[in-house]
């Protein structure tokens, strides 16, 4: 299956995103990050295919957000590479970023812009023509029920509204990869449902979803594969069934996750 998403860039790289389902869209090789000698991420090797919904799990401080920031080019790896849709995020950052939609866990936005201003600003940064912006604005603001607040300053938005606004702007340039950090925090149940359906639909249509979350029920519901990171090391990579098999336990993801991370605490030599 071929997935296409055309973007109207005014840059020199106007072209289509084309990825066969199954071909790697996110690829990291021996990715490392040290902060003042402390290892935040250690030798991370990941390969995530087009159309896959990948859930990245781990306790607080495990290295999830650091990994995400390296994938999106907001942090430089100490060593190793991260390739997004065929472009190394360090050597070809603009091409790689054109293919990423990012939703951070704490969306700091321009407080003195209205929702409409912000949407237009992002649209212009990504070179999307105004007619298309207008269509997308109507569509996403309606979808996320933001229309009544469209001309209010962002400083008056609740956390959930900000999160939804960021979702809308992250999707507008039809990225190949959607990187989402803690998507459900602060959202009302209706919005949680909308986001879950949206993420699943996006993955089904061929977009790669890289989802970092603590909400294990969401991961259980959405993930094609999961990765569990703890103290910077990838403890497990595979499906939830494979995790059950590896641990020789039945049960839900929460029990498996706790078991895996607790066993790692008692297994500091990294035998897993």
């Amino acid at each position, binding site marked *: 299956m071929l997935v296409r998403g055309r973007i109207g860039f005014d840059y020199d790289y106007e072209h289509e995103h084309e990825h066969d389902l199954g071909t790697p869209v996110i690829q990291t090789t021996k990715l490392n990050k040290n902060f003042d000698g402390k290892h935040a991420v250690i030798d991370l090797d990941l390969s995530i295919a087009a159309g896959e919904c990948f859930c990245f799990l781990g306790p607080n401080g495990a290295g999830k957000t650091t990994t995400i920031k390296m994938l999106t080019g907001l942090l430089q790896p100490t060593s190793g590479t991260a390739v997004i849709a065929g472009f190394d995020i360090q050597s070809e950052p603009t091409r790689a970023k054109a293919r990423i939609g990012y939703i951070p866990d704490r969306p700091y936005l321009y407080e003195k812009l209205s929702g409409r201003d912000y949407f237009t600003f992002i649209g212009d940064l990504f070179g999307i023509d105004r007619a298309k912006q207008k269509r997308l604005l109507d569509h996403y603001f309606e979808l996320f029920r933001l229309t009544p607040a469209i001309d*209010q300053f962002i400083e008056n938005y609740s956390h959930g509204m900000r999160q939804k606004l960021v979702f809308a702007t992250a999707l507008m340039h039809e990225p190949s990869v959607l990187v989402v950090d803690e998507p459900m925090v602060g959202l009302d149940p209706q919005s949680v449902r909308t986001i879950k359906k949206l993420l699943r639909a996006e993955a089904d249509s061929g977009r790669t979803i890289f989802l970092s979350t603590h909400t294990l029920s969401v991961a259980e519901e959405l993930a094609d594969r999961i990765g569990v990171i703890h103290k910077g090391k990838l403890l497990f990579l595979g499906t939830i069934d494979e995790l059950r098999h590896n641990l020789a336990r039945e049960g839900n993801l929460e029990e498996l996750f706790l078991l895996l991370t607790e066993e790692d605490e008692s297994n500091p030599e990294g035998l897993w």
Partner: protein
Amino acid sequence: MSFAAFLSLFARLKWRQANNLILGLRRHLWVHFAIGMLVLIMLVGGGTTVFTIIFNFLMKQDVFGRPLMDRLVRMVLLAFFSMLIFSNLIIMLTTTYISREVEFLMSQPIRHRYLFFAKLVESIVYSSWAFVILSFPLFLSMGRSREIYEWQYYAWVVMLIVPFLIIPASIGSVLTLVITAWFPPRRMLRLAIVLALVGLVGAALLQRFYGLAHILRYGTGQPSELGQVMRFLGIGDIPILPSSWLGRGLLAAEAHNHHVAALWASALWSTAAMGLVVCDWLAGPLYYHGWCNARTSGSARRRRAGGLYVLFDRILFWLPRSVRAMVTKDLTIFWRDPGQWGQLMILCGLLFIYMANLRSASGVGEFRKLIPFWQSIISMFNIGATSFVLSILTTRFVYPMLSLEGRQQWVIGLAPVPRTRLVWVKFIFSWLASLAVTLPLALLSAWMLKAEYFIYGLSMLTVLAVSLGLSALAVGLGASMPNFNEDNPSRIANGVGGTLTAILSLIYIGTTLALETPWVHAFLVPQSIDSGTMRLVLIASIPAWAVLQLFMIIVPMAIGLKRWKRMEF
């Protein structure tokens, strides 16, 4: 919890925060310390020198020197008093009603009155430190010029100043309490800035019509003119104002009249105590109401679709799409933030005063008939003043621009544009904006002085070059030393990076003017070129000037771009 216990807890919290801030700076602690000391020495040393020169001059004037000096001091104290009320008003509004910290503290089991008083103490500290630093040279040089060396005088200074600082703080607090109960604080902040501007322009007009410039123009010997000066300075001596009491108290202390000094100190202390009691009465019923008012009003109302953003976007249609988006966003945010444009308005007010005075200076007449030495001095001063205004613009507004991207950096950081484009956009935008303000100013001031074409040309050249250099310096240092933890542009500009930008800007302007001085002198006194040394200085100054300008553009930008490219967010 008792009030004393809460105040002590609050003070410990602030102390711990300040301590952690200093610990956080430990990597460049000596740089911070050196810059801080340099600024302090410049302010105190410079201030003391200027005041000592003025006071010594006045004390030598037998008949009117002494009373003129007394009235001048009271005038300065009145200016301080008004500024203190205004700064307390602004600080109380921002720290007591709009701050996020109060949101947390309100959720704690603390009486609203206690919280308000803790914030009042904080406001006194924040608004007074500048007064203390600025007034220190005033009192020191006053004592020196009158040859007062007894410690009692300085003890009286402290006894009189402390209540003098509390009174404007309580006036500002009462004003905020009363007005926020009916008006939203954000709107009131705008109102306060407009009031300040009106006050500034009013003061400029007053100065224009009754100013010393008028007297200086016609000499000072005539009794009627002296009377006019005294009447003008008498404005500072309004008996019902605490600034007047402070002035009289200082006078009594100086004359060893301790009973009278004690009387004025009592007047100040009792008024300060009354101010605090009134605050206490009002804080109970009004503070919580006003604070809630701040959360339920303001900019939440529905706005007209597009508005400013669309307007700027249309004006900038000729720019490439991504650059236009960045500039439009900056302009929109700037005009929607009263804290930012308020500063600009106050700066415009200062420019107005400067221009009004220049008009008087030109009226001193016949700029061209002045001796060449004074012509050079006035021309260079004029170019210097324009450059100085430019340096204020770049330090206050340009330097914080990249820091303000801070927590939102991920937004542009994720866009498919080279990371350094943002730095270039800020540089070009700030250069054009500063040029738009200062080029007409330079032209206008040269025109007012009825200067020669050479001076016109030199002013243009200097503004053009210095605007590039200062923009590069502010953007380069802003990219090298950003402060991403602060979202208040004034605090960013007041930080170490901002102070360093200000100091380097002044050194740069000073060096540029020093290198231009031989050109002006050679133009006004052509025969001076005959001297071998003068010719050598003139020839050497031209390439030195060019090298300096190139250095100031290339080096800060190169460092800034390199650091910004490597920056992690």
